[in-house]
Every structure is written in structure tokens, then in C-alpha cells.
């Protein structure tokens, strides 16, 4: 699988002679039969064939890296997209300013304000390195919200671990909680709620879902697209290092011999301080009208940001990879493209505004570099040491990835599970009741929630242990919002359709009983392997249930995230759709807290 060393028979550029292995577009055209490690990168035979067909040649090493990451399940939603369409088919809501497809949905909450919110998973990294995995999960979702033009104003977290007394839970849980707190606290975002639940199916595969909510004025909305030929592409924030590119190391070993670059860590280390500066710099940049488009860098780093920006715009884009500030000078071009170094953003800036943009960044000590520009035409090109290493139609990378309608099968054990009857004798009932009240799921959560700052920004009206978090967003009018994040996986295991609806109903009720009017839904769908038909069935049923539930309640789904392959060996986690509901309070001073307030109050039971 290693490439045969080619003589430097191409361009006589000194840099290329110094790197005889550099795989250029030119070389790819001349060496169509070079074997490429596409399978190791997770691409199927037919996917690789399609890339060759799109390009009319074999991809370069850098292009192969880009396609493989962007066409991964994580970035392309290839197994889930056919089902997620149901959310797009929901009736339009007047409150929805921006729907699914952008970094996060945006909802009108009145008085000229809009709110954007989204929940995202960081499950696998949190198992490998609990603190950093959870911390960078918070960092990632906060950048999604920032990208919409909003000031992030709060976070929530929904957590699942293996049995509470399992030894590995003692390793993973404290690290995850400290990471969620460490990052959110340092950013100055109050944590206003979440979940903490235990089940054996999460041993070896904890779930860390983080939600962020932000607020903006309608006119401050930003979109992720590259428009305007000649506009500059500016990369800003942290330097690019070898983080989170473990998967692409096959390419490194292909390009370098035995003692090549150090093995790249699959773990990313968060730097919340840099992110805080990034937030303040971005908000100042937005207020001064200095960008025409902006995108955060998350999974797949520069590959993702450039191809998505270009794909959403009307032109092409040319990037000079040498301009990217590096933390590690030994990175290969493919690694620079793939790096998941945290705390970076990419903006499209008119040439006349670049100086002002850079000055704001300098004020906040944020590194900012022009790395390319918007071009006419419809290609994304990337150069390295004067050589073209990427020349692709950006839509094929970012939007036109593979889609699968995978086989589905109702789980064979479902009938037996559903037939499990409720207790009939009083002794059974007593035992079940004791099991429920002694479950760690019902235990006091203050060990966790005390590690989160709930007060920062001074607008937290309700937070833990309330059912919904409530925030004031305008001090003069007392306009506010309520949020709840819920996901009972046991219901979903028994019946994913109804289970998803019960989760939605719970989040909806939590928001409603705080006194708010529910407006919109976000979700994070955590499931096992989509290649298992029973899991795929659970997924499809949960999506159908959630979509039908939203239709019934008249709520739009504004966005979300899918996390698949959550399993240990062959055993999938319980299907875990985590649902977030956002509501609006015309006057937060009229919020209703949970619990009795005074002696002598009447107790009423509502509902059936």
C-alpha cells in the first residue's frame, strides 16, 4: 500500500524536489494506477470509485483525506439523512428564521430578538480522555452558536454512563463533569440544566451531549457562505496542530517512511481561554459588519470549513495552505487539512475590511491570517509550496456525499420486552418501588451541578434542580426563554416511536410548566451501528415518532446532531434520542418554580 517513490520528474520547484513524495493534482493525473489506502480511511469501493468519477482522475492524497472525512458518517449523515427528511417536512413555523441545514436553527422570540440553540454529542472522545473530550464537546457546540452571529448565553449537558458502581464509571464520570464545568465555567456560560443517567449499555460508551443557546438581534444573523469574488478567506483563533487526526495517520505513513512524523494524537485539548477571546472578537467583528460569511472549525477542520463555505456560496475558493499558522511544522498537507485543532474559525471578509478585521483580532490577542480568497468559477483549489494539491468541486465534498437507505428490522427481542407485565402482587410492587427510589438515576445531582457556574452573566432565573432552565434576555422588558433537555432511553428501547414522543412530551411539559410557551425543538440522536438493521429500525422509528410528535404540537425541529456507532463490541447502547425544547417567556418575573411554596396550598392533579 505504500506509494512507490517517484522521481522528481514534475515541476522543478525546489520545494517539491525537497518533498519528492508530495502528491499533486498534476502527479495524480499522471499516475492513475497508484494504489491508495481508501479502505483504511473508511471509504467503500464504490465511494472511492465515485470520487474518481467526480474528479476524472484518482484523488490526490490530500483530496482523498478530505473526501474520506467529509463522507464519513459523522460529517455526511449518510445513514441518517433519508430519515431526517421527516423533520424538514414539518409545517413551517412563523417563529423559525433559519431552519435545519445551517450550523444551528434560529427562532424569533419577539421584540427583535432571536434565539439559536443546538445540542451535539462528543461521546467517543469523552471515553478516551474524559476531561478533554467533554470540554471540547462544549467548545464545539458553543462555536456553532457563535457562528450564527449570536452571543452564547448558556449551556446544558445530558450525560449517560455505565452502572454507577462500575469501576470505569469512576474514571469517566468525574472527568466528564469536570470537563463540562471546566470549559463552560471558563467561558462564562451558566449551566442551566441537563441530565445524568446510568445504564449498563453505556459502559465503554458514555454519552456526552452538550447544548448551547445564544441570543442575537434579527439583523445580526450571520450565515456560513462564501460570496463575492475577491473576498478574503481569513482563518482565526488557535494555531493548527496535529490534533484529532489519528485516522489520517495512514496517509502520513504513506508519505513518510518508517521514522516519519510522531504518531498523531486522536485527542484534542481544549483551550477555553482562547475560545472566550474568540467569542468576544467575533461579536465585535459582527457588530462592526466586517464579515460576509463565517464558519466554525470542528470535525474535519479546514477541509470542512472551506468546502462548506464554498459549497454554500456561488463561486469557488482558492486556499494557500502555506499561510496556515502551524503549531507543529512537521504536519503534512493532508494533516493540516484534517486537523481538528480546537478554537478556530474561518471568515469571508471584503478586501477593504481586512485591516479592520485583523485589528479587532489583535485587540483580543487572537491570531488571524488571510489564507485565500473567493474566486469565480466553481472549484475549491488548495496549494502547498506552490503546487496544487486539491482541485475539487466543493459541493461534491460538502453536500453530495453518499446516502444510504440501510436495511431495517424490528428487534427480535422487542415482543418479549414489551410483554414484561407490570407487577401484580404487592410484594413485587414493593420491590419495584424500592428499586426505583434507590436508583442512582434518582439521586441528588448536586455533586455534579455544584461544579457548574449557574450565576455568571446574572440572568439565570431558574436552573438546577428545576425542570427547566430559565434565562432573562432583556433586563428592561423581562423577556426570557426556557429550555429543557430530556431523553429516557428505557422508553425508547421498549418502543422507539413512542419513546421519542415521551421524551419530547417531557421536555415540552418542563418548559410549559415553567410558564413558557414552547417554540422549537432540537435533538441529538445517539444510537448504535447503522449497519445493524435492528439499530437502524430503532433510529427510523425514533425519528418518525419525534416528527409526528412535533407535528402534533406544532413545533419545528430547528436542528440537531446524529451520533451512531455507540456500542461496545456488538452490543449497542439503548437508543437514546435526547430532545431539547425551547420556550419563550414574555415576562420572566412570572416564572413558576418547582415545588411547594407555602403551607396550606391546594394540590391539583392535571391530566388523565
Amino acid at each position, binding site marked *: 500500500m505504500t506509494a512507490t517513490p517517484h522521481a522528481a520528474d514534475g515541476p522543478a520547484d525546489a520545494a517539491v524536489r525537497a518533498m519528492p513524495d508530495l502528491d499533486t493534482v498534476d502527479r495524480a493525473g499522471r499516475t492513475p494506477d497508484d494504489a491508495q489506502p481508501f479502505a483504511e480511511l473508511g471509504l467503500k469501493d464504490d465511494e472511492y470509485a465515485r470520487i474518481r468519477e467526480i474528479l476524472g482522475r484518482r484523488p490526490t492524497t490530500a483530496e482523498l483525506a478530505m473526501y474520506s472525512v467529509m463522507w464519513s458518517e459523522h460529517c455526511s449523515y449518510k445513514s441518517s439523512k433519508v430519515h431526517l427528511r421527516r423533520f424538514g417536512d414539518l409545517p413551517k413555523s412563523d417563529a423559525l428564521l433559519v431552519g435545519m441545514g445551517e450550523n444551528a436553527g434560529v427562532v424569533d422570540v419577539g421584540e427583535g430578538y432571536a434565539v439559536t440553540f443546538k445540542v451535539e454529542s462528543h461521546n467517543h472522545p469523552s471515553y478516551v480522555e474524559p476531561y478533554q473530550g467533554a470540554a471540547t464537546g462544549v467548545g464545539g457546540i458553543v462555536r456553532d452558536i457563535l457562528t450564527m452571529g449570536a452571543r452564547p448565553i448558556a449551556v446544558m449537558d445530558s450525560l449517560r454512563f455505565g452502572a454507577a458502581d462500575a469501576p470505569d464509571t469512576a474514571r469517566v464520570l468525574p472527568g466528564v463533569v469536570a470537563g463540562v464545568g471546566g470549559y463552560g465555567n471558563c467561558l462564562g456560560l451558566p449551566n442551566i440544566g441537563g441530565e445524568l443517567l446510568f445504564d449498563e449499555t453505556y459502559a465503554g460508551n458514555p454519552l456526552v451531549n452538550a447544548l448551547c443557546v445564544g441570543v442575537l438581534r434579527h439583523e445580526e444573523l450571520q450565515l456560513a457562505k462564501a460570496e463575492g469574488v475577491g473576498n478574503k478567506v481569513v482563518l482565526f483563533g*488557535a494555531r493548527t*496542530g496535529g*490534533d484529532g487526526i489519528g485516522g489520517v495517520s495512514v496517509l502520513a505513513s504513506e508519505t513518510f517512511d518508517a521514522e516519519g512524523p510522531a504518531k*498523531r*494524537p486522536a*485527542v484534542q*485539548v481544549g*483551550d477555553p481561554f482562547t475560545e472566550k477571546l474568540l467569542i468576544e472578537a467575533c461579536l465585535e467583528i459582527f457588530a462592526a459588519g466586517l464579515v460576509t460569511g463565517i464558519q466554525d472549525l470542528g470535525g474535519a477542520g479546514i477541509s470542512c470549513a472551506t468546502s462548506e463555505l464554498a459549497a454554500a456560496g456561488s463561486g469557488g475558493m482558492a486556499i494557500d495552505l502555506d499561510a496556515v499558522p502551524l503549531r507543529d511544522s512537521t504536519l503534512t498537507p493532508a494533516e493540516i487539512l484534517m486537523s481538528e485543532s480546537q478554537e478556530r474559525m474561518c471568515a469571508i471578509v471584503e478586501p477593504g475590511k481586512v485591516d479592520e478585521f485583523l485589528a479587532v483580532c489583535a485587540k483580543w490577542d487572537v491570531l488571524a491570517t488571510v489564507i485565500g480568497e473567493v474566486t469565480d468559477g466553481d472549484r475549491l483549489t488548495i496549494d502547498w509550496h506552490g503546487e496544487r494539491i486539491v482541485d475539487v468541486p466543493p459541493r461534491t465534498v460538502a453536500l453530495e456525499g453518499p446516502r444510504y437507505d440501510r436495511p431495517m428490522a424490528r428487534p427480535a427481542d422487542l415482543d418479549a420486552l414489551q410483554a414484561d407485565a407490570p407487577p401484580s402482587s404487592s410484594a413485587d410492587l414493593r420491590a419495584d418501588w424500592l428499586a426505583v427510589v434507590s436508583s442512582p438515576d434518582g439521586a441528588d445531582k448536586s455533586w455534579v451541578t455544584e461544579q457548574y457556574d449557574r450565576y455568571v452573566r446574572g440572568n439565570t432565573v431558574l436552573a438546577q434542580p428545576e425542570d427547566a432552565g430559565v434565562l432573562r434576555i432583556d433586563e428592561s422588558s423581562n423577556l426570557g426563554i426556557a429550555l429543557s433537555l430530556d431523553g429516557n432511553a428505557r422508553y425508547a428501547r421498549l418502543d422507539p416511536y413512542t419513546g421519542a414522543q415521551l421524551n419530547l412530551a417531557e421536555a415540552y411539559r418542563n418548559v410549559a410548566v415553567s410558564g413558557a410557551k414552547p417554540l422549537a425543538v432540537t435533538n441529538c440522536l445517539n444510537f448504535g451501528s447503522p449497519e445493524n438493521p435492528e439499530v437502524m429500525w430503532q433510529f427510523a422509528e425514533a425519528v418518525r415518532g419525534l416528527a409526528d410528535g412535533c407535528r402534533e404540537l406544532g413545533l419545528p425541529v430547528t436542528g440537531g446532531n446524529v451520533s451512531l456507532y455507540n456500542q461496545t463490541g456488538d452490543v449497542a447502547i439503548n437508543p437514546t434520542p435526547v430532545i431539547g425544547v425551547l420556550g419563550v417567556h414574555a415576562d420572566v418575573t412570572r416564572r413558576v418554580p418547582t415545588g411547594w411554596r407555602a403551607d396550606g396550598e391546594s394540590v391539583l392533579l392535571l391530566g388523565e
Partner: protein
Amino acid sequence: MPQVVVDVVLKPEISDPQGQAVLGALGRLGHSGVRSVRQGKHFVLEVDGDPDEAELREIAETLLANPVIEDVELHLPTD
């Protein structure tokens, strides 16, 4: 009592925001001759009797450091 020192340092490829922040502060304070700063942890262990190198190495690598992101340097008493 014999003292064993364990220094835990971030692997070179892992970013070190703390070291970066110190470097920035040094620059602002006019110490321009410092080119890079990396911050790690320094443990001083007092042990009973003869230090057992294998055991100490295990302690250093599994408890004091997180091998996913950190390297350790073990310094046994040299006398």
C-alpha cells in the same frame, strides 16, 4: 527518606495553552529572550526504603500522568 521526583510533561504534539499564556506574559513583561514555554507537573514522592523502579514507573505512568497526552520523566535518588 529517599525522594523520587516525577516530572509530567505534555507530549510535544499536544497544545499547551498554559505554556502559551506564560510565554505571552513574558513577552509583555519584556523578557523577549524566551522562545517557548511548556508547563508540566512536578511530583516529589517520599518512599520507604529502597525505591522500586518498576513500581514507581507504573505509578508515574498510570496515576500521575495520562499517557494519552502526557509523557513522564522519573528521577530516582542517585546517591
